[in-house]
């Protein structure tokens, strides 16, 4: 397995015929744009799916155990497809498992929101709501991507994301407009999540490079539709939309919270304890 980022860039360049976006001496080293782009999409879903799977067997009601597991399954399924595509784009022979199990934290590209610990059911639901609303509009845009693999994932994922959005919207309304306790909990969860939402819409040189290569996503349009959905649900839930204060970011270039390392230490322990084994 090629562990060197440099090797990844070289092979990617040779295959895709594009210049890699090189890091500055103080910044992180990034790979070829399309590989980075697919890793961002894949890692978001892998890490969030993993977090949801931690609920399995511990939900507040049996029906929610099933629903949270459903969403975890959808997201991990999407992640497997996206990481496979990332591995193919990279062209060094890494498959989805090599990418999921044999990268260190700094090599993960998920947004910070995905890796935060689950908190209570309210936090998990609010986070899932905010992410699902984003996913629905992102997949809608990517349906038309001139990249057969990615458009194929989008066609399947959009149906799943719509269900996740519907299910979590219903819960945000129930919890927001439920009891004083549930209202307080879910408002706090919203306040806690909010500063991580900016990263979902941030674009950088990777997006610019992907646009030059292949396609562009109108993130401003996605943001505006996301705003509408979020405002509508929060209003029905009698919740207050937090102010857009300082936004936390860094996950897209491998600058994570301390939480990711702990998540990976659990996720990767069996695979890494047996190098070369198949499962």
């Amino acid at each position, binding site marked *: 397995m090629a562990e060197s980022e440099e090797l990844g860039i070289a092979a990617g360049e040779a295959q895709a015929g594009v210049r890699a976006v090189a890091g500055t001496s103080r910044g992180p080293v990034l790979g070829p744009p399309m590989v980075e782009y697919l890793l961002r999409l894949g890692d978001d879903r892998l890490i969030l799916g993993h977090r949801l799977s931690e609920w399995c067997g511990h939900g507040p009601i049996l029906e929610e155990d*099933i629903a949270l597991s459903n969403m975890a*399954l959808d997201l991990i399924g999407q992640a497997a497809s996206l990481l496979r595509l990332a591995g193919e784009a990279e062209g060094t022979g890494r498959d989805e498992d090599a990418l999921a199990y044999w990268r260190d934290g700094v090599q993960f590209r998920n947004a910070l929101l995905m890796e935060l610990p689950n908190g209570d059911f309210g936090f998990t639901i609010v986070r899932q709501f905010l992410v699902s609303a984003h996913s629905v509009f992102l997949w809608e845009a990517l349906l038309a991507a001139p990249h057969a693999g990615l458009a194929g994932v989008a066609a399947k994922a959009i149906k799943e994301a719509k269900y996740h959005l519907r299910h979590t919207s219903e819960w945000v309304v*129930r919890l927001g407009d*439920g009891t004083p306790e549930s209202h307080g909990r879910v408002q706090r969860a919203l306040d806690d999540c909010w500063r991580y939402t900016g990263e979902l819409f941030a674009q950088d040189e990777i997006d610019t490079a992907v646009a030059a290569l292949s396609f562009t996503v109108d993130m401003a349009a996605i943001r505006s539709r996301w705003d509408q959905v979020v405002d509508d649900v929060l209003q029905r839930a009698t919740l207050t939309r937090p102010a857009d204060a300082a936004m936390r970011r860094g996950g897209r270039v491998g600058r994570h919270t301390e939480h990711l390392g702990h998540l990976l230490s659990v996720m990767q322990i069996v695979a890494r304890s047996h190098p070369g*084994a198949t499962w």
Partner: protein
Amino acid sequence: MATLRGSRLCSLTHMTTTIRQLPADDPAQVAAFEARIAAGESIEPKDWMPVRYRSQLTRMMSQHAHSEIVGMLPEGNWITRAPSLRRKQSLIAKVQDEAGHGLYIYCGTETLGVDRFDLYNQLLDGTAKYSSIFNYPTLSWADMGVIGWLVDGAAIVNQTILAKTSYGPYARAMVRICKEENFHKRQGYEICMTLAKGTPAQREMLQDAVNRFWWPSLMMFGPSDTHSPNTAELLKWRVKRKTNDELRQRFINLTVPQAQELGITLPDPDLRYNAETKNWDFGPIDWSEFQEVIAGNGPCNRERLEARRAAHDEGRWVREAAAAHAAKRSQATAAA
């Protein structure tokens, strides 16, 4: 799973229904009932049935449902550590199936006039029983294979027969559940086969898991016929169709060749083929261990119940919020 996606919150928010009054048995009705059983008819929820028949079925079905729910925990323990994305997905799907089975059987018990929340409270307060196998810890990834192979395998032997039980709703539930359990068993056996063909460490992991789960799997069929207080009555009413010992022997006969295929050793020096009976004879089961686990003194009894109680307690505010919101909505509808 699409059918389970719809929220059933309305039915979840009322928490207090008591067991309905049961009619006293009339000998003529019992005779008519037993004639129907003897003729191989299926008993349906609205049919007359003896009080004991109803209570035995409630006991069996609720224990079964509890076992599905508690059974989510030992396997759920390895979801976050599954060593490949494919294994992670299939393990989540399996545990999710168990939740679905639990829900399905709990709903089945309601056809007998009990409320699933009363039954669930019996699980939480420790008065209800569930399968003793889930009180054993899962200590390595190989346990995910061995549980699928042996534990689901044993469950299938039980449930295939239960699919012919005289109570219609339970029989139909078993037909559906058996299909999924068969899939789980194949999946488990495939994990075992992958480990058996793997590195020395993987083979060692597999053998260790088999050593730990073999005897508890045999105990899943319940006490020997001579010590099973419920068997005679259950056989008479065709709730059960085979005795515990018959089913246990059938499981062993099916499993030994599979173990040979894997190239692993079953931890029983007395295990040998009997050409006369065409059965695999086996050594004595340590029933004192079984009794200890049933009595609450197994390795994980406390942990399993504690996990269910914690989920229930931590979910209280969520259930209260759902109920409060539903009440507001129905008030708003009434006012409109």
